[in-house]
C-alpha cells in the first residue's frame, strides 16, 4: 500500500475519532434541559402542539394531563375566567404566566413553574390548578410560613376570585383577565 494512502487513512482515522467526540459533546449540549422561556404567542401555539403530541400517546399519566389540558381549554372559553397570572409584588414583579389549564407550582425548587427567590417560601410552597369546571384553585403544599389569600391563611384548596392577592412570603400574585 502506498505511503500516501496510509497517511491519508491515518489522518482520516484521527479525524473520524475526533468527529465522534465532538458529536457526543454536541449531544450533551442539546441534552441540558430545564425550564424554557418563550414568547407568549409562541407559547400558546407550542402548548397546542404539545397537546396534540400527547393525544397520540396512550400512556396513563399523559392521558391524565391531556384531560387537564382539555379542561383548561374549556376554562378559557368561559366568560370572566382569568387568562393570566401576574406577580404584583416581590422580586419577580411583572412576571406573567399564561393560564392554559396547566398546574402552576410555586416554590424555591428549581423545577417550579415560578421559582421564588424568597427566604420565607418553602421549596414546594403552593400550587394553582384548575378544577373540573375550570375554576382556578390555590392549594398550600404544607409550607412553613403559609399561603395567604386576601388576609386569611389557607388550610384547604380554595377557589381564587379574580384579582384577589395571594401572598407567599414577600411575593404577591393575582389572577387577571
Amino acid at each position, binding site marked *: 500500500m502506498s505511503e500516501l494512502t496510509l497517511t491519508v487513512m491515518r489522518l482520516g482515522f484521527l479525524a473520524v475519532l475526533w468527529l465522534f467526540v465532538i458529536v457526543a459533546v454536541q*449531544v450533551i449540549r442539546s441534552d441540558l434541559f430545564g*425550564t424554557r422561556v418563550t414568547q407568549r404567542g409562541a407559547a400558546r401555539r407550542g402548548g397546542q402542539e404539545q397537546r396534540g403530541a400527547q393525544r397520540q400517546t396512550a400512556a396513563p399519566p399523559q392521558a391524565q394531563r391531556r384531560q387537564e389540558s382539555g379542561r383548561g381549554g374549556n376554562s378559557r372559553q368561559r366568560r370572566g375566567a382569568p387568562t393570566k397570572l401576574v406577580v404584583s409584588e416581590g422580586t419577580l414583579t411583572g412576571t406573567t404566566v399564561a393560564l392554559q389549564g396547566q398546574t402552576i407550582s410555586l416554590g424555591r425548587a428549581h423545577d417550579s413553574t415560578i421559582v421564588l427567590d424568597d427566604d420565607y417560601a418553602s421549596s414546594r410552597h403552593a400550587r394553582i390548578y384548575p378544577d373540573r369546571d375550570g375554576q382556578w384553585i390555590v392549594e398550600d403544599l404544607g409550607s412553613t410560613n403559609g399561603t395567604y389569600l386576601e388576609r386569611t391563611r389557607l388550610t384547604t384548596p380554595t377557589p381564587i376570585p379574580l384579582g384577589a392577592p395571594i401572598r407567599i412570603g414577600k411575593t404577591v400574585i393575582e389572577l387577571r383577565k
Partner: protein
Amino acid sequence: MSSTSNTTTIGTIGAPSRRNTELALLVFAVIIPVFAYINVGLAKEDTVPAGVLGYALGLGLLAGVAHLVVRKWAPYADPLMLPVSTLLNGLGLVFIWRLDQEPQITTPQLGGAMAPGQLMWSTLGVALFLGVLIFLKDHRVLQRYTYISMVVALVLLILPVFFPARFGARIWITIPGVGSLQPGEFAKIIIAIFFAGYLMVKRDALALASRRFMGLYLPRGRDLGPILVIWALSLMILVFETDLGTSLLFFGLFVIMLYVATERTSWIVFGLLLSGAGAVAVATFESHVQTRVHNWLNPLELLNGGVTETAQAMYSFGSGGILGSGLGQGYSRLIGGIAPKSDYILATVGEELGLAGVMAILLLYGLLIERGIRTALAARDPFGKLLAVGLSGAFALQVFVVAGGVTGLIPLTGMTMPFLAQGGSSVIANWALVAILLRISDTARRPAPAPAPSTDAEMTQVVRP
C-alpha cells in the same frame, strides 16, 4: 430562571427519550472500529483483511441488540453511554487483533491469538448488560442487599489470596477447566452497592456529629470506625495480594462516596493522609511494591542488558508523536510478553494514534464518566445518586490508575483499561457497570408522572401530617 418581561412565560421542557440519537451514534461507533480494522489490514498486508465482514456484522449485531433492548426496557436512558462503550470495546478488539498480527508476541507459550477470546468475552459482557437491563427493573432493589453485598464483596476480594500469584500479584482465581478470572473487577460494582446503601443510612451521623477544628470538621471517634476498617482492609489487600490497583480502587472509592454523601472536605484530607501513610508503610517491607516504585522512579534503567517494559512504553509514546505512526505501523510489540495487549494497550494507542488519538480515547472515558456523574445529579433518590457516583467513581479511578501507570505518572499497577484492554473479567464487569448506570439514568430522566388528580378535593379533605 424567570424573566421579568411582561411577554414571556416559563415552562418546563420534558426530557425527550433520545433513542434515535443513540442509534445514530451507535452506527458511528460501529463504523469507526471497522475503519480501524481495514486500516490495520492495509498497513500490515496490503489487503483488506478477510475477517472484516464478520467483524463488522458481529459488532453491529451486538450494538443493534443492545440498542433494541435499551429502547424496550430503558427508553429514557442516557443516549451516550452505550455508543461510547461500544466504540471503546470495538477499538479494543481491533488493537488486540492488531497485536495478534505480531508473531513475536503471539507464540503459543504466551497464549496465542487473543482477539477471538476477547470477542467471546465481549459478547458475554453484552449478554450480561442485556440481562441486567431486563431483570433489574429498578435499581432501588439493590438497596435491600446492602449487607449481603458487603459479604460477597469481601469474599471476592479475599478469595484470590488462596490462589497462586501470577505476574507478581494475587488477583486471579483459577477454576479448573473454565479458566481464571479477576474477582476484583466484579467486587468494585458490589462494593459500590454496599457503600451506597451504608452511607445513605449513616451519612447524617457522619456529616453532622463533628467538631470543628482549624477549619476542618473532625468526626467523632466512633464515626471514624468504618473508615479505619476499610483502610485496614485495603492495606491487607495490598500486603497479601500485593496489588496496588485493587487496594487504591477500594479505598479511593470509599473516600469519594463518603465525600459525596457528607459534603465534608475533611474526609478527603483524612483519606489522602491515611492512604499515603499506608502506601509508604507497606512499601518499606513489600518487595513487589518496591520493585514497582523503583521502576517508576528509574524508568530508563537497564535491566539484564536490556531496557525495561516501562522504558519501552515510554519509547512507544515518544515515537508516536502528535499524530502517531498509523494503525498497524508501530513497534509496541517490543514491550514484550502479553503486556502490550493488557496493561500497556494504551502505549499501543499512543504510538499508532499519537497524542491526538490518546486524547480522544481519554476524552471518551471522560464523557462516559461525565454521563455517570450527570446521572447522579439527575437521580431523585439518594441511593441512586450515591450508587451512580460510586460506579462512575470506580470507573474513573480505574482509568486514572491504568493511564497514570502506563504514562509514568504513578507506579504501575496490575489493572486493565476498561473495555480497551485484553481481559475477560474486566470487559464483562464493565458492561454490567454501564448497564446499572443506564438503569439509574432511565429512572432519573423518565418524565415525572402528572400530579395526582384532585377531582374530589371539594368532597374530601386530605389531611397532611
